[in-house]
């Protein structure tokens, strides 16, 4: 496992992600989740597998195709915000809005003024005591709770990275991650 910077590595606090594959054949987690969120093929399989959750929530009669389009547009929106903040020299960390324990969305708070719970894309990250963020994964969350295999996988990744950080003496606390 490696911890790698996403933006300028000299930024303090910084934003990092995890390279789970030590051989570096698979992309790092932040690159991987945006690849998934841009693939109609993968999204189609995901929404088909989770069709009951998709059609039992806020969007009752949504089709898989509509869900794919919504996801890609949301992911594009996230990327635009990240790139524009970076190029304007703004603090990219300000875009990561905490929702729940370790769960974030990417939001321009100035524009959306608190309506950022809409949308189903989630970033999972651990905040360190210096304010840095380590992004451990991401997911499409169609349910309120985390009791779905793909979401439990995110909890497992969080725990793996927490163990890794503790082992290497890097500080984070549960308090600042609530």
């Amino acid at each position, binding site marked *: 496992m490696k911890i790698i910077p996403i933006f300028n590595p000299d930024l303090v606090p910084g934003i990092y992600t995890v390279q789970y594959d030590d051989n570096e054949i698979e992309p790092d987690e*932040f690159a991987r989740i945006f690849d998934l969120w841009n693939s109609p093929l993968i999204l189609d399989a995901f929404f088909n597998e989770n069709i009951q959750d998709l059609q039992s929530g806020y969007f009752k009669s949504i089709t898989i195709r509509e869900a794919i*389009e919504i996801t890609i547009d949301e992911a594009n929106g996230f990327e635009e915000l990240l790139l524009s903040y970076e190029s304007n020299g703004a603090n990219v960390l300000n875009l990561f809005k905490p929702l729940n324990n370790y769960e974030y969305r990417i939001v321009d708070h100035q524009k959306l003024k608190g309506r950022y719970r809409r949308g189903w894309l989630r970033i999972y990250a651990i905040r360190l005591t210096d304010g840095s963020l380590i992004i451990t994964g991401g997911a499409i969350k169609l349910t309120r709770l985390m009791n779905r295999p793909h979401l439990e996988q995110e909890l497992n990744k969080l725990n793996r990275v927490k163990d890794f950080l503790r082992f290497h003496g890097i500080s984070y606390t549960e308090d600042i991650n609530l």
Partner: protein
Amino acid sequence: MNQIKEKLKQLGGSKPSAWREKALQRRDNREWLRKSQAIAARVLESLRSQSITQKQLAEKMQISPQQVSKILQGQENLTLQTIAQLEAALGITLVYVLDITESVKTGQTKAASKAL
């Protein structure tokens, strides 16, 4: 603060995240990429509604299953020929061209769609 940064540096890989480069590529190619993704989503919907597998689609189009998979990833700059082959294989229309006609009475411009 420096201590954490130094420790993280030691735990880093040989390269920074691949995300930024990919995001810039996606941004630079947004217009056609978005269309490719929309076509892929429509094709996937059609495969499901007609109970056609990707392998069967490949056979109908006389291309490899790997090529079909690439198309469905939505990252291909599809040729008109490939789009036409998809349309023929699935019996659907993927691309329309708008005809602009002008109404004499109202002076308004009306758009009528015409499938290619």
